[in-house]
């Protein structure tokens, strides 16, 4: 039996299948009901998430939560979800995707360590198990955006090795670029952390392998790698560059205004020694921990100290086997560097250096959430564990340490095997039907407005379940709600003023702020678990009392909808004396101005951003509007069915119209358009001169960075297809001659 098992372990493919089955078992809900994260119950629009994700934070006029909580599911993993959803129910798709990602981490690590040790060792599986089942994966597996880079790191490093050690460079370069594509750069700090590991490994590779590259060849391989990686990943790289390069200092402050100490307040050396950055591991609210297994590892001595044992074994092993580890000194350095980065400014001698770097080194501030460096700590620990195990000469001792490590891994991963990675409290069978009923209500009001949510929230916690994103996003309206995070965040500034104004019954102040924010409806959520964040949220009675002066216009289940007294700014998304607009999508609007005699003002009641630009639109491309669905205060909106696509070619060639673009009502966009100016700057074919001497013309209102994103997707798609074609030809050719 034992020899059969040993033979089985010699065949990696059997091990991988076995691990996949275990993973499927772990990620299943084991009869606890259907786990559907609210994100999946919502429709999402991956392409236009770009605007919200990359730019919403770039200015100080960001009110509440984003409409796009699903950013992690955009390409290419989103494609897997999309594909899977056609065959299986969403919860099975979720299970398959998560298992596949975890399996990728397992296989990637095992193959990487095999390449490093230059022999296949059973101990590689021990390291791979530690890399796959640990506290970080436990905490992050539900947050795929955080998890993808971690899972893809070993494969990336494996391909880096192959690029610089194999004769054929192109295949591993394509492999590396695909691994980076799947990793996805949606969370730039995590991508940057992977880059840090790659740099360490790069030095390790060159010092260990003593690669004899000519400088010219080195440059050509590096150029080829960067070229293919950048082109296949351009869609997200372009977003990151645009985001980080174009935002103002003030805007940057909005992103980073969360106090440095907040993110790494608990990441002490002691915590990192047990593989925990404890970002939220020990956190909770209302006496309920965020993770239902936290208590077990924080208060039970046995479980608590089990977390320390593997790092302790490794720290001792580093000294005992330092001769064998000499060639992996860069990995050891990576371990210590990462530990210091997790702790950040919180503690120790490296804290002041961290703070200095945070304040002075460009882009270093993206590492303010040091917890994320736990990924590299675990990577280095897993790596060193394998090397130490293979270095132990006496078989009995080696087996003893191996079984001990396996036992500890099992103990640390108990929540995986006992179906506790999903919390009961977060299990949502379905979003209550009254949310859909409320959507119908809001759909009938075609004007553009925001909805103010009460009670105040930190995260969305309902009696029917806790959601990652607010289910109110399904109403497809701008929401005004508190952002999870510090009160000091600038993005919370206006929202918190509104809350305090309303709770103080200072209705003049509250109404003024709500008008500024274009709030038309207030929704009291009586199904909100207000006691969970007791210090932040308010009771239904309290909310009902403060909302007494407002008119309740509808009630759907547990939702009470109040309407504000009308004000001019609530009437529409775009204001002008004589304007007709058509929404093409969330980043593209067509504005038609009729009978302009002198100057006119166009107001766009979305958060101000200088990258919202007006482009003169030829009359031939101006969509016609035959069916008005909304008409009020001189503003008309066409039927959504009359959506017209603007040709991509036009988007590429159009030139922005230079008009005064300024902030309106402290948050929105306002342009001043002048008849003479239009006649001077715009070709005559773009406007029509009316009999009374006035002109009628159209503009495209477009969020410019979206164009870069379109171009990035185009380049990434072409590049990916080209790579796939190359790989196909390469393997067919190889097969033919083998």
């Amino acid at each position: 039996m034992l020899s059969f098992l040993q033979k089985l372990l010699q065949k990696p493919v059997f091990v991988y299948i076995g691990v996949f089955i275990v993973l499927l078992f772990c990620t299943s809900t084991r009869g606890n009901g259907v786990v559907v994260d609210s994100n999946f119950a919502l429709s999402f629009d991956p392409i236009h998430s770009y605007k919200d994700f990359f730019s919403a934070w770039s200015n100080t006029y960001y009110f509440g939560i984003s409409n796009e909580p699903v950013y992690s599911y955009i390409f290419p993993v989103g494609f897997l979800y999309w594909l899977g959803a056609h065959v299986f129910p969403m919860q099975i798709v979720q299970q398959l995707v998560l298992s596949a990602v975890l399996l990728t981490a397992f296989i990637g690590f095992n193959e990487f360590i095999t390449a490093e040790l230059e022999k296949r060792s059973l101990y590689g599986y021990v390291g791979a198990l530690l890399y796959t089942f640990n506290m970080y994966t436990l905490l992050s597996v539900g947050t795929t955006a955080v998890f993808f880079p971690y899972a893809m790191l070993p494969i990336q490093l494996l391909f880096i090795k192959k690029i610089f050690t194999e004769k054929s460079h192109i295949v591993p370069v394509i492999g590396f670029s695909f691994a980076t594509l799947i990793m996805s750069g949606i969370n730039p700090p995590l991508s940057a952390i992977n880059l840090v590991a790659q740099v360490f490994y790069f030095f390790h590779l060159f010092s260990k392998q003593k690669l004899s590259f000519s400088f010219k060849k080195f440059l050509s391989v590096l150029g080829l790698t960067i070229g293919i990686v950048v082109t296949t990943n351009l869609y997200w790289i372009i977003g990151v560059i645009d985001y980080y390069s174009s935002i103002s200092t003030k805007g940057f402050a909005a992103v980073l205004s969360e106090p440095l100490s907040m993110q790494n307040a608990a990441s002490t050396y002691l915590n990192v020694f047990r593989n925990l950055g404890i970002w939220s591991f020990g956190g909770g609210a209302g006496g309920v921990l965020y993770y239902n297994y936290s208590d077990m590892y924080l208060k039970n001595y046995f479980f608590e100290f089990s977390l320390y044992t593997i790092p302790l074994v490794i720290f001792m092993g580093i000294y005992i086997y330092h001769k064998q580890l000499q060639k992996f000194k860069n990995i050891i350095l990576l371990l210590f560097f990462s530990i210091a980065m997790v702790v950040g400014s919180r503690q120790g001698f490296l804290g002041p250096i961290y703070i200095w770097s945070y304040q002075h080194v460009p882009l270093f501030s993206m590492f303010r959430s040091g917890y994320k460096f736990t990924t590299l700590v675990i990577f280095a620990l897993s790596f060193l564990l394998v090397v130490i195990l293979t270095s132990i000469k006496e078989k009995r001792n080696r087996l003893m340490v191996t079984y001990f490590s396996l036992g500890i891994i099992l103990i640390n991963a108990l929540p995986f095997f006992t179906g506790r990675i999903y919390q009961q409290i977060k299990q949502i069978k379905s979003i209550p039907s009254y949310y859909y009923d409320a959507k119908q209500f809001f759909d009938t009001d075609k004007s553009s407005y925001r909805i103010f949510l009460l009670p105040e929230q930190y995260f969305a916690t309902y009696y029917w379940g806790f959601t990652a994103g607010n289910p109110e996003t399904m109403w497809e309206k701008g929401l005004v709600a508190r952002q999870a995070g510090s009160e000091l965040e600038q993005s919370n500034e206006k929202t918190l003023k509104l809350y305090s104004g309303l709770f103080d019954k200072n209705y003049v102040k509250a109404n003024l702020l709500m008008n500024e924010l274009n709030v038309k409806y207030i929704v009291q959520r009586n199904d909100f678990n207000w006691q969970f964040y007791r210090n932040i949220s308010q009771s239904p009675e309290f909310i009902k009392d403060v909302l007494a002066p407002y008119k309740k216009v509808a009630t759907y289940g547990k939702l009470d909808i109040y309407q504000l007294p009308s004000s001019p700014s609530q009437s529409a998304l775009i204001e002008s004396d004589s304007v007709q607009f058509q929404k093409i999508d969330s980043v593209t609007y067509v504005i038609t101005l009729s009978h302009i005699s002198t100057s006119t003002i166009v107001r766009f009641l979305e958060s101000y951003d200088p990258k919202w630009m007006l482009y003169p639109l030829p009359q031939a491309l101006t969509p016609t509007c035959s069916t008005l669905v909304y008409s009020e205060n001189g503003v008309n909106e066409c039927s959504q069915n009359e959506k017209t696509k603007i040709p991509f070619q036009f988007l590429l060639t159009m030139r922005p119209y230079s008009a005064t673009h300024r902030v309106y009502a402290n948050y929105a966009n306002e342009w001043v358009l002048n008849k003479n100016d239009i006649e001077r700057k715009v070709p005559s074919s773009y406007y029509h001169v009316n009999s009374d001497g006035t002109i009628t013309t159209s503009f495209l209102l477009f969020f410019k960075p979206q164009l870069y994103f379109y171009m990035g997707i185009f380049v990434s798609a072409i590049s990916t297809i080209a790579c796939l074609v190359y790989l196909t030809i390469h393997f067919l050719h190889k097969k033919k001659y083998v």
Partner: protein
Amino acid sequence: MFKYLKKIALTITLTVVALFIWFTVSLFVNPQESFTVLLSFFNKDNIISAPKGELLKGEKIIGSFKAQYGNLGIVSLRFNTYVHINQDKVIFRIKQVGSNNWYYQNDYKVDQFQPNQLFTFGFPLIHASKGKSYVFEVESESGKHKNAVALDTTNPVFVAKYQYTKSEIARNAVTLVKYYFLKLSNAFQDVRFYYNSLLYTFPIISITLWYIYSLVKKGKQKQLPRTIPYVVAILMIVESFLSFNLDMGYKTGILLMWLLIIKIYRFNGGVSHKLGVVFFIFALFLQIVGLIKNAEEIAMWAFTLMLIGIVQIFFFSKKGE
């Protein structure tokens, strides 16, 4: 022999003078507190009850402490203002434990409270306070959600202050010397004293370095006691057990001493690394017995020592060493 004694006498004199400069100048030049004020520091263990978050209308923070000296006149309490200017009023009351009546009470507007700073509640001096226990209360008059302060549990949570008069201190030479040492021992309980006196440690540090340098120069490392590395290691532990956080400068001082020891005693990387591992295990032990804060500090030293060891082993040792 006489030359040797003379040298010892000179070293002792210089050391005493250097220590005197350090202590005295620190007490009189830019002191955090007047020379005539003594302080007692208290942590959250001395808070009997306090609301978890905001101090809302009618809620109280209640604390008690035993006065270390006579002339108690101030209790300073640390508040969290949530970085708001709040509009509440609080009532401060104090009395001796067991007494039926409050010795003093007054109300204070909280808009003058500074975020996370100690706010001073003054009252008429209690001359015979030494050794007696007191209880105080801070009650909110109108605190409400989003417009209230809270207790900040950062150490020290509150400070009791004792005010002496110049005539009491300088009554004669004996009272002056006694008070000098009383003040000195009191100052050593205040982390700010260390920070402020950093500059004035220059003479004593110079003398110590000069002494070590002179021994090393003469190749007399062996004359250095074997206990010195242990003393520095113990200093790390002692530093971790102080009831207040030392300034990073002092930790750096201990670290530099360790680096100097590595150089002088020609320790290889294994010494630091092994000591680091021992500290790691010690940190776990401290965690078991519930001394979390001390465990955290020891873990910091464990990391630092292991890092020093690793760098020595992998980057500064010769092959085969």
